[in-house]
């Protein structure tokens, strides 16, 4: 791993390259994650409402964004979008400076793709609740919006936390797809270090260790969150006792 402390072509160290890659991976992960959860919860809830057109729209959203490969979606945002919108907007997009020019399409691709997967989890969570919850909310005179925000979603989300954790991990891994549109995140930096130094093992091992570390931290945090937010008596681990 000595190579990490060698001076790189731009005057810094290769470790510095890797850290800059880590920064972009984490930033992309965080921004797309927040957006994906917001959209995913909205769409997932919309898939379970009584209003038919809204349900169909949500269903279509999931169908489209889940069935096109993430890489292709990113290409659409990066290459195709600036061409199909009015020219002035298109050229405004093309003016954006380098790291951000790849960052925004990457965020769009990752968050919309991940949202379609989260929506399915949220839908499953809402559907797993007893029908009585919705009826009781009706009986209390809550509006549809109140029913979701105050009654259904808080319970559904607490049930779905374990699968949402694996979505977060999946999102972390998917951030590497952004390298195809030129974002220098961890994997891209590792490939770059390999190209400059031919220290193949060191370069890719460092990247692998970084991903493992982030995954480890995520698991610890998720475990604590799960423990705190668990609805008493609904733990899936109860079954292992018998």
């Amino acid at each position, binding site marked *: 791993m000595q190579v990490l402390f060698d001076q790189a072509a731009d005057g810094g160290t290769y470790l510095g390259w890797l850290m800059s890659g880590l920064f972009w991976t984490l930033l992309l992960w965080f921004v797309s994650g927040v957006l994906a959860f917001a959209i995913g919860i909205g769409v997932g809830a919309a898939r379970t409402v009584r209003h038919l057109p809204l349900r169909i729209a949500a269903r279509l959203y999931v*169908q*489209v964004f*889940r*069935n*096109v*490969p*993430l*890489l*292709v*979606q990113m*290409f*659409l945002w990066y*290459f*195709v979008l600036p*061409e*199909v919108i009015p020219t002035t907007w298109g050229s405004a997009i093309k003016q954006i400076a380098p790291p951000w020019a790849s960052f925004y399409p990457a965020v769009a691709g990752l968050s919309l793709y991940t949202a379609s*997967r989260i929506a*399915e*989890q949220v839908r*499953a969570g809402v559907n797993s609740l007893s029908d009585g919850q919705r009826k009781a909310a009706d009986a209390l005179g809550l509006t549809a919006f109140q029913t979701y925000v105050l009654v259904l979603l808080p319970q559904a989300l607490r049930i779905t936390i*374990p*699968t949402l*954790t*694996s*979505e977060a*991990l*999946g999102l972390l*891994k*998917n*951030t*590497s*797809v952004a*390298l*195809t549109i030129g974002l220098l995140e961890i*994997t891209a930096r*590792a*490939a770059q270090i*390999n190209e400059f130094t031919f220290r*193949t*093992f060191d370069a*890719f091992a460092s*990247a*692998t260790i970084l*991903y*493992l570390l982030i*995954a480890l931290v995520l698991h610890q945090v998720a475990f604590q969150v799960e423990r705190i937010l668990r609805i008493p008596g609904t733990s*899936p*681990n109860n*079954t*292992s006792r018998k």
Partner: protein
Amino acid sequence: MSFDFAAVVSATPYLLQGLLFSVELTLVAMIGGMLLGTFMAIIRHMGVPVASEAVRAYVTLMRSIPLILVLFWFFFLVPLLLGHLTPAGHSIPLGPRFTAFITFTLFESAYYAEIVRAGLKAIDKGQYEGAKALGLSTSSMYSSVVVPQVLRATAPIIVSQTIILFQDTALVYVLSLTDFLGAAAKIAQRDSKLVEFYSTVAVVYLLICSIGSELSERFRKKQGQRSSNGRLERAKRMFGLARL
């Protein structure tokens, strides 16, 4: 701007060739991954002393790092390793095609292993006991009693995972291979027709994967009518597989 559909039509044979490679890669990785994955799942399920820990570490590692990174590992590192092992001493390039087949098979085997393991746990204990009572050997207990039931029970998840695999094959783009997306990208760049080719690619993927999802959904519904599903759902949740 105008949508030049004729350019896409005239490139159809080349695109189909690319699509064929994507399908080929998916099938090879699915069959190889299922065989290897089932084998690994059984090792873990039986609790074979050292091997079981090794499989666990392998599966965790593969599931924690991005596929692109794994592709790079194999593309750059395995030739060097082979070079060290042979007397020649210089690196032996595997070529991107071979790298893709190997990487996808090994990578997917980790995911299939977790699915099959969840299935093995979900099978009723009586099935194992029944097989033992009939005097079946361990290998025939797994091959003729347990695994066939596991495969049927997990069919919807296996189909879902295979759709994800099919989508993931687009990532061979980073090795400059000519899969479906790679073929489209090459012509799109040559003719400066990015809009036409990339949107065509998106629509074709959408169609193929929608058919796949529909199939998976059918399997799921069919099984919903049968019993024993709560158990599999629980096992899936325990392994964080419910997203499939």
